[in-house]
């Protein structure tokens, strides 16, 4: 680790000009894929992510069916060309772990009890990766589930807080991540501030952890507004189209 790299300059600016608690530029568009029941496209910094939802639909394989509720299945996938060195197609251990915790976080808000025996299938494709893809994927997937019209208690915004050269920094980009000393991805239910996804690796003192959690929760609320905005735009477009048809 090269500690000469200055992560935050004298003016409190990071390598890309952001403040410590500032998100990268972000945009979300809902309803981008015709075949899926719901979908979303998200860019945050140099990450490009697609999420699609199919369901509730019949659950395959059948032995996974739950007579009391729908199951939520997720596949998080980094496309081969999304990273520096080409990634071989197919799931690796990292992507399987991310798929699991993403499905669990979504299940926390989806009203699965309304769809016994069904499956809700969430697909997250990372087209271009630049640190923070698991959070970007969950944020997008949450919009895609809403776009599919599946009843949810709330959405799930997600972001990571990092530590680099001793600084707690929100939403590390890849350059910063290369000097990262800790990473704390989390996702919340904004209405209650409850945490549905939480991971950590690295080194945080008790105090740093508390600060990082606060930064993360605050930023999740910012992201939540963008999620809602994307859905509002989507509904207004859908309403316009409907109106056109009626005219």
């Amino acid at each position, binding site marked *: 680790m090269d500690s000469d790299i200055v992560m935050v300059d004298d003016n409190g600016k990071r390598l890309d000009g952001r403040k410590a608690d500032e998100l990268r530029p972000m945009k979300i568009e809902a309803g981008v894929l015709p075949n899926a029941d719901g979908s979303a496209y998200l860019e945050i910094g*140099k990450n490009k992510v697609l999420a699609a939802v*199919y369901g509730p639909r019949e659950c395959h394989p059948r032995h996974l069916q739950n007579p009391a509720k729908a199951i939520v299945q997720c596949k998080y996938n980094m*496309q081969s*060309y999304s990273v520096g060195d080409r990634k071989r197609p197919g799931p690796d251990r990292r992507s399987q772990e991310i798929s699991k915790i993403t499905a669990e976080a979504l299940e926390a808000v989806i009203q699965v009890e309304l769809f016994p025996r069904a499956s809700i299938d969430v697909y997250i494709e990372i087209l271009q990766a630049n640190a923070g893809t698991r959070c970007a994927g969950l944020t997008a997937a949450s919009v895609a589930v809403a776009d599919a019209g599946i009843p949810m208690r709330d959405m799930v915004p997600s972001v990571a807080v990092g530590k680099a050269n001793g600084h707690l920094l929100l939403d590390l980009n890849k350059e910063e991540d290369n000097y990262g000393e800790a990473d704390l991805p989390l996702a919340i239910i904004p209405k209650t501030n409850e945490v549905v996804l939480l991971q950590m690796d690295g080194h945080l003192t008790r105090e740093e952890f508390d600060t990082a959690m606060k930064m993360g929760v605050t930023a999740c609320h910012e992201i939540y507004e963008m999620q809602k905005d994307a859905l509002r735009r989507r509904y207004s477009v859908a309403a316009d189209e409907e109106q056109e048809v009626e005219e």
Partner: protein
Amino acid sequence: MSKSVVSEIRRNHINELLRKGSRMDERAPLDLREISVETGVIDTAEGSARVHYGQTEVIAGLKMAIGTPFPDTPNKGVLTTSMELIPMAHPDFESGPPGMDAIELARVVDRGIRESGMVDVESLCITPGEAVWMCFIDIYAINYDGNLFDAAALAVVAALKNAMVPASNYDKGEDFPLPVTCVPITMTAAKIENTLIVDPTFDEEMVCSARLTVTTDGNGDIRAMQKGKSGAFTVEEISDIVDLAREKGEEIRKIIG
């Protein structure tokens, strides 16, 4: 690609329209859908393109690295083409390693590129027998509404045309454009009852009895063909499709410049 069944009503509707020379999306039998091509859509790729044929969407990306050549072609770079029919793109697609359909798609796209000599693989040799550029072409179906052959082939051609060899990452001098020699274009026709159509949608693919994919180069010469499905073509129909492929090839070649 194999689980869906088109209802009899839809099948009859498609057939009836075609007998009148029309299609569900109001195209004439020999019209292509609207085609869009965006290049450079993936910063992390050496070359990339997103292509739409109507609602069919694919992304192709090229990654390059230095590797050892095959023993029987010591002075040639290596091309590899993969196609992923990810479950995001269609309710029939399932997770898992490429199935027969994905393999056929990748191999047919690969043949069009390889047999036309589009990429000048000899100029991708660094040290004969030791070091050459490896080209990994990965194609993802993003939304599938028929005719992945043509959309995938066009995405690959567009990605290659705009690719830069990342020489500087490997201390091999400055980056330079991937050397391409020509622009092969792929066109697929399908036979429904006794009518030929081009650029079939998903529903039309389900209904058609046979499919023929033809790749032509800038001279109108044939570089690759693949017949599919269990129906048959007359020799005349094949000849007509070859003419169509040459004609549409010219059209599309203008789109991507």
